C-alpha cells in the first residue's frame, strides 16, 4: 500500500491542523455564546485528532489512531459535562453569554 503522504506531504497536514486549531482558538476568543465556544473547542480537538491520524500514517503506526479513540472519549465526556454545566448556568442566569459570568472577579 502506498503511503498517502507521498502525495500530500506531512507539512500540509500540519498546516491544515494548525489552521484548524487556530480557528478553534479564534472561536473561543471571538464568541460569547458558550455553546459556540464549546464547538470551537471541539474544532480544536478535531484539529489535533486529524494530526494524530496524519502522524499515524507518517509513522505507519496504529498507536496514533488508538489515541484518537481516547481523545474522542475525552471529547465526548467533556461535552457531556460541559453541557450539563451550561444547562445549570442557563437555569440560574437565563443566559449562556459568557460575558455575563462576571460575578467572580477582583
Amino acid at each position, binding site marked *: 500500500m502506498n503511503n498517502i503522504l507521498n502525495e500530500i506531504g506531512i507539512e500540509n497536514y500540519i498546516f491544515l491542523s494548525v489552521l484548524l486549531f487556530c480557528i478553534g482558538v479564534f472561536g473561543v476568543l471571538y464568541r460569547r455564546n458558550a455553546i459556540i*465556544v464549546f464547538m470551537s473547542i471541539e474544532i480544536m480537538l478535531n484539529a489535533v485528532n486529524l494530526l494524530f491520524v496524519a*502522524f499515524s500514517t507518517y509513522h505507519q503506526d496504529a498507536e496514533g489512531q488508538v489515541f484518537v479513540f*481516547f*481523545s474522542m472519549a475525552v471529547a465526548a465526556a467533556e461535552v457531556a459535562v*460541559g453541557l450539563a454545566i451550561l444547562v445549570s448556568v442557563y437555569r440560574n442566569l437565563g443566559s449562556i453569554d459568557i460575558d455575563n459570568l462576571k*460575578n*467572580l472577579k477582583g
Partner: protein
Amino acid sequence: MQVLITIVSLGVFCLLAEIFNLRKLLVPVTVIGLLAILGISLNLWAIDPSMDEKYASMIAVDSFSNAFSSLFIILTIFLVALSGDFYKENQTKISDFIAIKVFLLSGAVAMVSFANLSMFFLGIEVLSIALYVLAASRRLDVKSNEAGMKYFLMGSFASGIILFGICLIYGATGYFDLAAIKDLSSGAGLPIWFPIGITLMIIGMLFKIAAAPFHFWAPDVYEGSPAMTTATMSTLAKVVAMAALYKILSSMTSSLTPTFEMVIVVVSILSMTIGNIMALRQDNVKRMLAFSGISHAGFMLMAILSLSTAASTLLYYTAAYALAGIASFAVIIYITRNKDNEATANFNGLGKTNPLLAAVLTASLLSMAGIPIFSGFFAKFMLFTDTIKSGYLFLVIIGVINSIISVGYYFKLILAMYTKEAAEEKQAVPFVYYFVAVVSILLNILIGIHPSLVTNLLN
C-alpha cells in the same frame, strides 16, 4: 497498578453503597479503604512485583510515583473525611461526591505513575472532569455555576493544548511510551515538533498548576466553588499537576535548554509576584488562598530548574504545602459552612471562641509563609538551596522578597482571628474538623521537625 485498581474498586464500591443504602457507613469505610490503599502504596515493593510487569508499558511504579501517590492518598483521606459533614445536607448525592473524589484520586495516581502518554492524558482528564463537576456541584448557586463554567471552558482549552503537545511529540517520535521517547530525545535528529510538543504540554500543565500568565481561572474558580472543592483543587489538584509536570519533564527530556529554563524562571517570577501581590488585597479567604496557591506554584516551579535532583525537594514542598492547605481548609470549611461568603470578617475573634482551630489555622498559614519549624520553611529552604546550586541566585532573592510579601496577607487572617471581636458565640465543632485539622498540621510539623521522613523516600 494495584493502587490504581484498588482505588477504582473503592470508587465503584462507593457507587454501589448508594444502592445498598450504606450512606452512613460510606465515609468511614472509604477512609478505611483509603488507609488500606495507603498501606499498599507504602509497601508496594513487598507485594508480588510480577503483576506489574504486564502493565509496565502503561503504569510504571517507581519511588517517585509511589511517594507522590501516597501523598495524594493521604490528602484524599483528609478530604473524604471532611466530606461526611460537608455534604450532610446533600445526603442523596453523598455517594456520588465521594465516588468522584475517589476517581479523581485514581486520575491523580495515573498522572504520576504513567508510562505512556495516553495514561497521562486520561488521568488528567479524569482529574479535570471530576473537578469541573465538583466546582459546579452546587447547582443552585450562581457562583458555583460560574466557577464550573469558567473552569470548564479554560480547562478544556488547556486540554486541547496538551493534546496538541502530545500529538506533536508523537509526530516527532512515533511513540507514546515514555522510555522510548526519552531514548530518542537524548539522541539528535528529532524534528522541532518534539520541543514544541513538550512546550505545549508544559504550558497546559502550567495552566493546571495555575502559574502566571495562565492563572486567571484560579481565583475565580476557587472563590466560586464550594469550599470542599476549593480545598481539593488547592491541595490535591495543584500538587498532582506539579508532580506530573515534573515527571513529564524529567522523564521525557534529558536536560533543559537554557532558554527553556529562562521561560520557567520568568513564569516562576511572574507567578510568585502576581500571586503574592494580588493576594494582599483580597478579602475573600478562598480567593486569597487561590492567589497564595499561584505564588506557591511559582515557588514549586523552581524545582524544575534543578530537574535531576529536585524530586525529593518537590515532594517535600508539595507535602508541606498540601498539608498546610488541608489544615487551613478544614478550619475554613468549618467557619464558612453556614455562611454565604468567605470574607475575612468571618474569622474575627476565632482566637477567643475557638483557640484550637485558630491555632491550627495560624500554624498552617505560618507554614505557608515559611516560618521555621513548620515544614513550609524547610520546603522553601530546600528549594532555595537547590536553586542556588543551579545558579539562579537572583530567582531565590526574588523568591525571598515574595515570601516577605506573602507574610502580609497570611497575617491579615491571623490578625483577624486574634485582634478582632467575635461576632458570634462559640459553636460545637464536629469532631472530624478537629481531627483533620490537628492531624494534618501535626503531620506538617512532624515533617518539619524531621524532614528526612519525606526526603528519604526519594533518595
